[in-house]
């Protein structure tokens, strides 16, 4: 067990010959919640996809350690069973895959990786119902195909439901506040806050300070042009909200 849940060391990433991440360094100690703020196009979402292991990105140098283990050679499902969870900015709609079937497959995959028995159907139902109730997710939503016909808020709540059921140790939230009204934002934030704990770390990626009123971070990082350019406590987020990102533009910082 490492003191640091996530360590990103000098990460450089290219997409079709264009360098997007230009030397990201980030350490998130066990139990801490960090936020990354940056304007659109600064590479924030690329960072979240690279952490989750999506194809289409060429990692030219650097390391990513999850709880002390290098995960760069792991496939997405192996990273997930190692305890990494990405809440998507745009959760994918998959017609024909029932939400419950998907949840069961995902939970059993985690259990299999830990060498545990598959969940019994009654235990599975109980876990899902309990977690769903606290997120205002009703049965009708669970009966639909995965994310199909869900509103923006429903999709984000469904992501948090998955997180609660899979109990990851490193959670990444990619623009989780986008598309949420204030009520949905509260529900989602409460779900996230209830998951905070000494053995779980979180990385909240956003470009609005608003979310950080609800999910209060230990550390705030400013992301610009493919790397972290400043780090500080939560007051940094307020400063950004007031002054914008202009100070960090190339040559100005």
């Amino acid at each position, binding site marked *: 067990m490492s003191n640091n849940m996530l360590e990103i060391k000098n990460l450089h990433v290219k997409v079709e010959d264009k360098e997007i991440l230009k030397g990201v360094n980030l350490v998130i100690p066990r139990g801490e919640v960090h936020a990354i703020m940056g304007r659109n196009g600064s590479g924030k979402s690329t960072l979240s996809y690279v952490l989750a292991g999506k194809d289409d990105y060429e990692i030219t140098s650097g390391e990513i350690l999850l709880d002390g283990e290098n995960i760069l050679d792991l496939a*997405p499902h192996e990273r997930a069973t190692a305890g990494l969870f990405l809440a998507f900015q745009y959760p*994918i709609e998959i017609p024909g895959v029932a939400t419950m079937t*998907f949840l069961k*497959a995902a939970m059993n995959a985690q259990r299999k990786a830990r060498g545990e028995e598959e969940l019994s159907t009654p235990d599975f139902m109980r876990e899902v119902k309990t977690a769903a109730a606290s997120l205002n997710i009703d049965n009708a939503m669970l009966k639909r195909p995965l994310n199909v016909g869900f509103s923006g808020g429903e999709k984000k709540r469904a992501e948090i439901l998955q997180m609660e059921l*899979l109990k990851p140790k490193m959670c990444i939230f990619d623009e989780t506040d986008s598309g949420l009204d204030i009520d949905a934002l509260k529900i989602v934030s409460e779900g996230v806050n209830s998951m905070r704990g000494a053995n779980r770390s979180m990385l909240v990626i956003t470009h609005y300070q608003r979310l950080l009123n609800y999910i209060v971070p230990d550390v705030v990082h400013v992301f610009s042009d493919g790397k972290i350019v400043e780090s500080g406590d939560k007051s940094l987020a307020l400063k950004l909200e007031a002054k914008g990102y202009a100070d960090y533009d190339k040559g100005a910082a």
Partner: protein
Amino acid sequence: MSIKLNKSEHILFEQLVAAGAKNAAEIFAKSGLPTRRIEQYHYSDLHALLADIPQVGEQTKQVSAPALRIAGAYRILMVNGEVQTTTVAPAGVDVGTIDGGVLSKRNDVIISLNNALSKDALMLKLTNDVDAIIHIDRRSEGDASHINGSVKISLADNSSATIIETFSGSDAAHLSNNATSVSIGKNAKATHIIVDLSSKKARHFHSIEYDIQAKALLHSLIVHSGSTLARTQLFAAFNGEKAHADLSGLMLVDDTQHSDITIDVLHGVPNTTSTETYKTVLRGQSKSIFQGKIIVAKDAQKTDAKMMSQALMLSDDAQFLTKPELEIFADDVICGHGATCGELDENHLFYLMSRGIAPEVAKSMLVRAFLEELFDPIKNEIIHEALESIADNWLT
């Protein structure tokens, strides 16, 4: 004028003569097997594909295990074309045999061969609501044989029934040529499922005819998951107003399998509706073909027909060929068609994997999702589960 017959055609000619089908033999000598120049066989050139013709099938006591078990069904076994056993029929079902040759005469060699060589046909008369599933278990058994079998089903007015026909048998290079004729009476409801699970050495042909009367409802699903060469041709004719048919099919193909579903839907009277939904999943170097023809007659106003053909390619070496043909002679109709062909969606796969689901499990889930549209409307749980098991077996 006769053409020069190839070896297979020569054997078929001799078999027709030996069966006493002189007229059919003479006609066959003029056409031979269909080549790619015959539109309906353009992608399934039987002159080239049928490299050998086995001897005409005989009765045999060797019967392999059922390829698909339908719990609680009323099962009728047909071995090498002959009706073998029948237990006591449920209420509303009359079982008998009639002379073979149940299909309408068409300019089609496979149909004329079946009409000429099929001796006896199973005759099912369904007189009211039949609760039990009727399972017609059609087998090609013993050594490789040329088998002709036929079934005629007649649903009386206001009756309803669920019928599943399965094709399977011994692991031999059979050539089976099968016919099913179904007439659906006024206000009757039929669900007709057809599943080919024949040996991967077998050549399977099936011609299906539907006569759809006024206010009748038909749900038809063809599944190909066996045979090295499988071809089903379906002819559906609306002969009464306010009837509706959902016609559907699935080809699961792998290795070098060749699978073909060719349909011909005739909206011959006003106010009838239909959907045509055909899908295929391909692996290996397989090939599947869907040809869909919809004809709307001049008087058939207010016809509404929607045809869709979709392929999921799991291999770069597989081939899918699809061809819609709409012939519309009426002027107040809705008639559409579409086709898609693609691979599994990478974003779907990534999303499932990002939750810990292994890639092979994720792929299976996505293939199953692709099939859901075909299986979902089958409300009978036993048949639904049987269909799921066919998909599972194919995927694992």
